C-alpha cells in the first residue's frame, strides 16, 4: 500500500505537485464541476444519434449499478439476480402506461379517468376498453415502491441465512422472474414484448423516440441517486450497513437489528432498480423477458467490482467504461483487427498467413464482451479488490510524536457523557443468572449456573480454558440461546432476546478474539455503537433534517470524547482504519465501542490479553474508574494479578460449573480452585 503510494508520488509530475497544493475538497469540487459540464454538453458536442442513445443507456446502467452498490457494496449482500428488480419495474410501468392491459370499461374506472390515469377507448362494434395512461412522473416512483416491496418479499425469508446462500437464492430469483414474464402473457405479452409503452411527457412535450431527453433525464437520475447514496453512506443507516458487512455478529452486539437493516438495503437497492426499469422501458417503448436475464445481473455486478464495492463514483465510472468498451472501443478494435488481417493476407502469400488472415478478418470482439466481463471479475478479485476508485483511502502515517504514547496511571481523567453515576444501591442485582445451562449435543458447556452481579461492582469470571466463560457471556448477550435457565437484567427477564435488543436494554460487551469493523475508522466504529441510542432513519438521513443533523453532531462529539478518554493512544488515530492499529489499541477500541452504546453493565472478555505489564496496569485503572463513573463491570480475565487487584467478587468456573465464589482471598484458599488451576497433585501437596 505505502510502496505503491510512494511510487505514485515519485511519478507525479510537477503539475501534479502543484495540483496537490489545492485543498482536497476544492480539488474534488473542481473535478466534479468539470465532469458535470462535460456530461451536460455532450449531446451538443457529439451530434451522432447513436452515441447519444448509447450514452442514455449508459445512464440506465449507472443507476442500476448505484442500486446494486447499496446491496452489495454497503451491506455486503451478494445479489446475483438484481436484474429481477429492473424487470419488475419495467413491467410495472408497462402495466401502468401501455396498451398491454385493456380491461373492459366500467363504472369502476370513472374516478381514475377523471384523474387522467386511464382513458376510455371507444371502437365500433366492441365494448369500450380502458387504456392505462399513468404519467411517467407518477409511474416511476410507483415502480420503485413496487420493486421495493418485492425486494422485501424475496429478502425476508432468505436474509437470515448465511451470505453465500443468499447469492444462490437471488440467482434463482433472477432466473424465475423472466420465466414468469414469459409465461404470463396477460401482463407481459410474453416473448413478443410489451405493446406501445408511453414515453414520458413534460409540459406537453413527448420524449418520443429521441435519445437526448432521455440522456438528460438519465443524468438527473444519476445525480439524484449519487446524492442519496452519499447521504446514506455517511449516516447512521449507512454505518450500520457497513458494520453488518464487516462483521454481522459484532453488528448485532452493537444494537443493530440485522434483519430489518438488511431488508432496508434490499428495498432501497430494489427501488433504484425498479425506477430504472421504468426509465429504460419508456425509452425503448417495449420490454421482452430476454432483456432481464442473468447476463444483465452479471454486467451490473461487474460494474460494482470494477468500480469498487461501496464506491459511489467508482461504480458510475465503471458503468461509463463498460459502455464505452461495448459501444465504441470494441467496434473500433474489431475494425483494426480486420484491417490487420487484410494486411497480413496481402503481404504474405503462404498458407499459414492466409489462414491467420482469414481468422483475423472474421473476429468480432463485440461478441466477446461477456468473456471480458468474466476476465474483469477474476482479475479484479485477484489483483485489485478495492476497485478502480476505492471506497476508503489509506490514511497517512502518524508522526513519530503521535505514535509514541506512554502508559498513564489513574484511570479515565474525563467523565464520559451518557454514563451517569448511579445512586448507591449496591445490594440490587444488575445481572442475575438462574440455573443457566447450555448443551451442545452431548457436551455440557455451562451447567446449572447461578451468578449475581451486583450493581456498581466489578465481578470477575475466571477458570481454565474451556470452562464455559465465553459461553456464559454469549448466553447473557443473546449470541447463543440457553438450553434452560434464565437471565435477568435489573429483575427483567432477558432470556432469549435477540442480541440487538439486549444491547438496547443496557448490556455492552467486548469479544475475546476482537470483532471490530476493520475496514472502518476508529471514529466510525464508535459511531456504530451508538446505533441503539440514535434514531435517524433512511429518509431523515437523505433529507438531513435538523433533528438528524443535531443527533449526528452530538454523536460525533461523544465519539471524540470517548476516544479522548484513552488519551493519545486513540485520539491521533481516530480517522485510521482499525485494521491498521496495533493489537493493544484494537482492544482499547473494543472497550471504547462498548462504552459508546451507553451501557448499564459492561461485559469484558479478556480485556488485557496481549498487553504488556504497563499497559495492563493502565487498563486496570481505567476499568476501576468505570465503576467510579457508575458502571457495573463483569469481566473474564486470565491475569490473576489484575483480577485480584480490581474485582470485588471472583467467580470460578470449571467444566461449566461454578466451583467457588467470593473475594480474592477466599477464592485462592479454596482447594477445588487450586485443583482446577494447578492440578490434583499440587493441590494436595
Amino acid at each position, binding site marked *: 500500500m505505502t510502496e505503491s503510494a510512494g511510487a505514485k508520488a515519485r511519478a507525479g509530475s510537477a503539475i501534479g505537485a502543484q495540483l496537490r497544493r489545492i485543498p482536497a475538497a476544492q480539488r474534488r469540487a473542481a473535478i466534479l464541476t468539470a465532469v458535470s459540464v462535460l456530461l451536460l454538453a455532450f449531446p451538443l458536442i457529439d451530434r451522432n444519434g447513436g452515441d447519444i442513445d448509447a450514452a442514455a443507456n449508459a445512464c440506465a446502467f449507472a443507476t442500476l449499478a448505484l442500486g446494486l452498490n447499496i446491496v*452489495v457494496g454497503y451491506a455486503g449482500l451478494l445479489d446475483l439476480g438484481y436484474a429481477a428488480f429492473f424487470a419488475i419495474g419495467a413491467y410495472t410501468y408497462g402495466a401502468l402506461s401501455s396498451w398491454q392491459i385493456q380491461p373492459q370499461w366500467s363504472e369502476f374506472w370513472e374516478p381514475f379517468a377523471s384523474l387522467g390515469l386511464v382513458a376510455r377507448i371507444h371502437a365500433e362494434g366492441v365494448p369500450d376498453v380502458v387504456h392505462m395512461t399513468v404519467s411517467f412522473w407518477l409511474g416511476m416512483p410507483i415502480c420503485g415502491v413496487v420493486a421495493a416491496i418485492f425486494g422485501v418479499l424475496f429478502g425476508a425469508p432468505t436474509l437470515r441465512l448465511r451470505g453465500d446462500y443468499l447469492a444462490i437464492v437471488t440467482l434463482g430469483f433472477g432466473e424465475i422472474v423472466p420465466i414468469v414474464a*414469459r409465461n404470463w402473457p396477460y401482463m407481459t405479452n410474453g416473448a413478443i414484448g410489451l405493446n406501445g409503452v408511453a414515453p414520458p411527457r413534460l409540459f406537453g412535450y413527448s420524449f418520443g423516440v429521441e435519445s437526448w431527453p432521455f440522456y438528460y433525464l438519465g443524468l438527473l437520475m444519476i445525480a439524484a441517486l449519487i446524492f442519496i447514496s452519499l447521504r446514506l453512506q455517511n449516516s447512521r443507516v449507512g454505518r450500520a450497513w457497513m458494520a453488518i*458487512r464487516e462483521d454481522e455478529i459484532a453488528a448485532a452486539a452493537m444494537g443493530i437489528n440485522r434483519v430489518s437493516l438488511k431488508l432496508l438495503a434490499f428495498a432501497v437497492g430494489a427501488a433504484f432498480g425498479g425506477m430504472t426499469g421504468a426509465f429504460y422501458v419508456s425509452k425503448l417503448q417495449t420490454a421482452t423477458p430476454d432483456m432481464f436475464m442473468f447476463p444483465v445481473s452479471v454486467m451490473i455486478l461487474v460494474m460494482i467490482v470494477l468500480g469498487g464495492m461501496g464506491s459511489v463514483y467508482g461504480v458510475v465510472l465503471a458503468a461509463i467504461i463498460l459502455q464505452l468498451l461495448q459501444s465504441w472501443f470494441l467496434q473500433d478494435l474489431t475494425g483494426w483487427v480486420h484491417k490487420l488481417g487484410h494486411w497480413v493476407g496481402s503481404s504474405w502469400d503462404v498458407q499459414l498467413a492466409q489462414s491467420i488472415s482469414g481468422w483475423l478478418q472474421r473476429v468480432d470482439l463485440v461478441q466477446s464482451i461477456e468473456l471480458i466481463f468474466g476476465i474483469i471479475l*477474476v482479475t479484479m478479485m485477484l489483483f485489485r479488490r478495492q476497485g478502480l476508485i476505492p471506497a476508503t483511502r489509506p490514511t497517512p502515517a502518524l508522526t513519530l510524536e503521535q505514535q509514541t504514547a506512554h502508559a498513564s496511571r489513574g484511570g479515565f481523567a474525563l467523565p464520559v457523557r451518557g454514563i451517569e453515576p448511579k445512586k448507591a444501591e449496591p445490594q440490587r442485582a444488575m445481572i442475575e443468572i438462574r440455573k443457566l445451562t447450555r448443551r451442545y449435543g452431548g457436551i455440557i458447556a455451562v451447567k446449572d449456573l447461578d451468578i449475581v452481579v451486583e450493581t456498581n461492582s466489578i465481578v470477575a469470571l475466571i477458570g481454565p480454558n474451556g470452562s464455559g466463560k465465553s459461553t456464559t457471556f454469549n448466553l447473557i448477550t443473546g449470541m447463543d440461546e440457553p438450553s434452560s435457565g434464565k437471565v435477568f437484567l435489573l429483575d427483567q427477564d432477558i432470556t432469549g432476546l435477540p442480541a440487538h435488543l439486549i444491547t438496547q436494554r443496557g448490556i455492552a460487551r467486548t469479544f475475546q478474539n476482537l470483532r471490530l469493523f476493520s475496514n472502518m475508522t476508529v471514529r466510525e466504529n464508535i459511531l456504530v455503537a451508538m446505533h441503539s441510542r440514535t434514531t435517524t432513519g433512511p429518509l431523515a438521513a437523505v433529507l438531513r433534517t435538523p433533528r438528524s443533523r443535531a443527533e449526528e453532531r452530538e454523536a460525533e462529539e461523544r465519539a471524540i470524547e470517548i476516544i479522548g478518554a484513552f488519551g493519545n493512544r486513540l485520539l491521533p488515530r481516530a480517522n485510521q482504519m482499525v485494521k491498521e492499529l496495533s493489537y493493544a489499541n484494537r482492544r482499547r477500541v473494543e472497550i471504547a465501542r462498548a462504552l459508546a452504546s451507553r451501557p448499564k453493565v459492561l461485559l469484558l472478555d479478556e480485556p488485557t490479553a496481549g498487553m504488556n505489564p504497563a499497559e495492563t496496569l493502565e487498563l486496570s485503572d481505567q476499568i476501576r474508574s468505570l465503576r467510579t463513573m457508575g458502571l457495573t463491570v463483569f469481566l473474564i480475565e486470565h491475569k490473576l494479578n489484575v483480577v485480584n487487584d480490581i474485582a470485588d467478587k471472583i467467580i470460578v468456573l470449571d467444566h461449566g460449573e461454578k466451583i467457588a465464589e467470593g473475594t480474592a482471598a477466599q477464592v485462592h484458599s479454596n482447594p477445588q480452585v487450586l485443583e482446577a488451576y494447578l492440578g490434583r497433585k499440587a493441590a494436595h501437596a
Partner: protein
Amino acid sequence: MTYNDVLLQQVINGVSLGAMYSLLALGFTMVYGIIELINFAHFNVFMVGSFFSRWVLKLTGLVGQRVALTGFPLVGTLLLALVCVMLFCGLLGVAIERTVLRPLRNVPGTAAMITTIGVSYILFNVILLTQGADAKNFPNPMPVVVWKVSGADLRLREVLLWGISLLLMGGLHFFVRRTRLGKAMQATAQDQEAARMMGIEVDTVVMTTFFLGSALAGAAGLIFGLYYNFTSYVIGYTAGLRAFTAAVLGGIGSIPGAMVGGVLIGLIESLGGQLLATRWTDVIIFSILVIVLVLRPTGLFGRMIIRKS
C-alpha cells in the same frame, strides 16, 4: 399407456435425470464441505465436460446416433470417454483452484464467490465463442434396446447410465471412507485448523476435492450428452442450479445427501413436469430451494454447522 404407466415412465426418466444431478451435486457439496464456498465455476465445468466428451467420442469415429456398438466395443468406448472427460475436468477444476481460488482462500467476504462467477462466465463464453450458439448433436453409440416394465419403457441407455452413476458414487464413497486421503478430507471438513495441526496437508486435500468434484461433473456432462443426444453452451446454468438445489435438499456438505437429493430433484422435475407443466419446472425447483433453506437449512442429511464465534 395408462396414466399409472405414464407416471412410471416419468419415474424412470426422473431417476435418470437424478443420477446426473447427483453426480453434479456431489461437486458442490464436497467443495462446500471443505472450504465453505459455493463454486459457481462448477456449473460450466460440467458444460465444458459435455463438450469435451463429445470431442472424444467424435475422435473414436462416432457420428450422430447412426453407429450402434455392442459388447466390448461399446463398453470400451464409453469407458474411454468417461476416463478422458473425468481426467480433463478434474484437471480443469484443479487448475481453477490453484490459479485463482487458492490466493483468495483466506480473504473474508464474497471475493472467492465472485471469482468463481467470473471463471464460470469465462468458460461459458469461451465455449460460446469457439463452438457457436446452436445446440450440438452428441454421438451416441448405444443400441436401442427397450424392455417393457408394465406399460413403461426401460431403455438400455438408462440402465447403463444408472450403472455408471452408481459405480462412480460407490467409488467416491469408498474413497472418502476407506482411503487415507479420504479420511483426511473428512477431517478437514470437520475442522480445517485441527486437521492442519494433525499434519494433514490442507492444500492437497482441497486440490483432491476439486479434482474429484470436477471429475464427477465431467462424468455428468458425458451422461447429459448420452441422455439427451445433444449438448449446448447453456446447459450448465439450469442443470447447475438444479444440482445445487439437490445438494441443499440433501444437506450441503453431506455426500449421501447429495446423492439422494439429486434423485429427488430428478423425480420432482419429471413428475412435476407431468403433473403441472414443464414451463414451471424451474419455478417449482426454485421454490423447493427457498423452502428448504428457510425451514430446514441443514437439509435431509446435513450436519449442524456450529458457528465459530
